[in-house]
């Protein structure tokens, strides 16, 4: 007769931590955690030791000290008496400005070049291929420096704009292209509601955003009408009016006026001065990233089955409507995820501003401020945190957009 007995209870043995799959993963994780903590401890400790050896402390107080240096491009009030913190803020705004302008232009260039590279026109598609391969395969830094050199050496000097010189302003005397940058007319608010002109512009921006929200409401309503009746009401004039009238009215009330650049003393004054450094950085970043975006767009379009366009043609849609209504909306689902990382790249690459003296956050906080105060560690930590935050913000916002454009599955 046989009896079933429980297997003998074996006590827990240390070797089980390695050989028993129930425990092995925990063992590995514990060891990895310990090593990680030890590594961090070592790094921090080493830093403290080395700072102590150099006789330095760790202190962010320098941010409230007067900076003492001037910044040429400033979107907010700043003078050499402002603090290092303020200088960092000016730099941050300059970084965000060039990153924003760059992302917009790169997207336009990239989508255009990507679509045109698939064109049936041999010349057009070859031209786009040259653009894409040319910019993708030459380092960005060279493009930045090349455009800067072109601007500095190739454009007319200021003195040639003086009486008797052989350079003149273009577009009805409103734009001056010089080797110090491009001067274009600017809008000034003669009698704004608030003392600070930045606040006045903020009011206009808020009004514009509200208008856009109202326009969305109008579109939704016409969508609903179309669902019900099958006829889409014609609302483009309403939308245009909502967009223009409130902002225009407030601008007139604030006394908005066009201000033309004018040669006075050493330089053009008034108007808006697009400095060489900004133009070089902006164009180079846009052209370079645009070439990558073009490839992403091309890949996205090629990913859409040929049957889609054939079906559209069978319905009688013209090629451009097929692209806009059938192909691109589907391709967007493939395009957007890699596009996010191109935007991140562009933003981080803007720190190449150092090559042309564009005063971005790396030049102010990460450059001059560190140099004048000797706070390398603190400055670099702040700089790292800033780029991290910006990258996470871009990536977060784009992911929200991505989720909305993806195929809604139920």
């Amino acid at each position, binding site marked *: 007769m046989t009896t079933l007995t429980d297997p003998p209870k074996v006590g827990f043995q240390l070797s089980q931590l390695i050989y028993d799959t129930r425990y092995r993963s925990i063992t590995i994780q514990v060891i990895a955690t310990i090593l990680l903590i030890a590594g961090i401890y070592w790094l921090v400790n080493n830093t403290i030791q080395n700072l102590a050896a150099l006789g330095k402390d760790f202190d962010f107080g320098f941010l409230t000290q007067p900076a003492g240096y001037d910044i040429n491009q400033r979107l907010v009030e700043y003078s050499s008496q402002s603090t290092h913190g303020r200088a960092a803020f000016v730099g941050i705004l300059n970084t965000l400005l060039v990153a924003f302008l760059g992302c917009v232009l790169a997207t336009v260039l990239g989508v255009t070049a990507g679509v045109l590279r698939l064109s049936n026109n041999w010349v057009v598609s070859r031209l786009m291929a040259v653009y894409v391969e040319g910019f993708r395969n030459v380092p960005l830094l060279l493009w930045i420096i090349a455009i800067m050199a072109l601007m500095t050496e190739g454009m007319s*000097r200021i003195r040639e704009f003086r009486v008797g010189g052989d350079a003149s302003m273009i577009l009805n005397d409103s734009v001056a292209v010089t080797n110090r940058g491009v001067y274009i007319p600017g809008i000034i608010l003669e009698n704004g509601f608030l003392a600070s002109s930045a606040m006045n512009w903020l009011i206009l921006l808020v009004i514009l955003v509200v208008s856009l929200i109202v326009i969305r409401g109008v579109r939704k309503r016409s969508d609903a009408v179309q669902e019900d009746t099958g006829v889409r009401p014609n609302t483009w004039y309403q939308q245009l009016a909502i967009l223009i009238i409130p902002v225009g009215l407030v601008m007139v009330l604030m006394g908005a006026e066009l201000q033309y650049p004018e040669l006075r003393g050493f*330089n053009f004054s008034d108007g808006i001065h697009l400095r060489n450094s900004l133009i070089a950085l902006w164009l180079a970043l846009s052209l370079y990233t645009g070439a990558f975006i073009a490839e992403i767009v091309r890949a996205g379009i090629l990913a859409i089955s040929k049957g889609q366009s054939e079906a559209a043609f069978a319905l009688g849609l013209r090629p451009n409507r097929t692209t806009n209504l059938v192909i691109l909306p589907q391709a967007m689902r493939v395009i957007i995820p890699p596009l996010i990382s191109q935007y991140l790249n562009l933003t981080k690459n803007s720190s190449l501003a150092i090559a042309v003296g564009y005063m971005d956050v790396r030049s102010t906080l990460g450059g001059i401020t560190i140099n004048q105060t000797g706070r*390398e560690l603190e400055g670099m930590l702040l700089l790292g945190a800033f780029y991290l935050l910006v990258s996470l913000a871009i990536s977060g916002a784009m992911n929200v957009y991505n989720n909305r454009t993806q195929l809604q599955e139920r």
Partner: protein
Amino acid sequence: MKNSVLLGALTIAGLAAGAAAAGTLDDVKARGTLNCGVTTGLVGFAAPDANGVWEGFDVGVCRALAAAVLGDPMAVEFVPTTGQTRFTALASGEIDFLARNTTWTFSRDVDLKFEFTGINYYDGQGFMVPRELGVSSAKDLDGATVCIQTGTTTELNLADYFRSNNISYEPVPIETNAEGQQQYLAGACDTYTTDASGLAATRATFENPGDHVLLPEIISKEPLGPLVRHGDNEWADVARWTLNALIAAEELGVTSANIAELANGTDNPEINRLLGTEGELGAMLGLEADWAKNAIMAGGNYGELFEKNIGENTPIGLARGLNAMWTEGGLIYSPPFR
């Protein structure tokens, strides 16, 4: 238990790494070369010649130090640094010694934790403008575009000068002297400002130096000198007394021409102490007895270095002025070798 042993070992490793960072003199001797920070290129002060050999007034100080420590003036690894990178390079130990038109200021000495080992050039900040601009004074520069090297004292002086004179300017930040020269010549800035000696050196390389004028205003004091890291006193002493040896040599009439003869012994005890035939000054520094002799033979005494690199017979053409010996009405002065 195991953890604390591990962490303890790591701590000791960290401490050992920290301790090893001290003793630059021993590091240099063990390495056999001196890592010397210089500018990225300023003719007369530090620039590579046609064969890629660095030469100039600041380079001369580097070579003298290498000769004093290692006996070989060519045992120098030159590290070009910009206004923004120089201090990080020195603080991080990438270079042992920075000889790069660096102004001795309170905050660099006290707050940035560096040790200036003397002054090898008394300078001041000036402005250069094209002659055709017709500007005769820096006060006429209201609204001008100014090329300025970032991360320098000149940048701060410039801001102060224009603010205190209630005039405005548009700064064009540049990284190196070469970039400044290119922007200035292209007319992207109306005026270039830096130390007057640097302006003279830059102008000397122009095709038509006569088309450019240095404005009369000198808006700051810029005592330029070599520096080392704070806290390594032995190394600071070596650097300090090497520069002093070059200065004392000129004062005592020791030149590269007569040094071989004088090194056999003279009736001037200070020359004997300087050249190592009397006393133990070399041993006190932890160097050979003929350290100062080697340093002087590397490129000559202070006056010879000056005349050869930036003096009136060179294209740069700087007069001795404030940089004459104290015995001739200048400020150059070495404490006694005693």
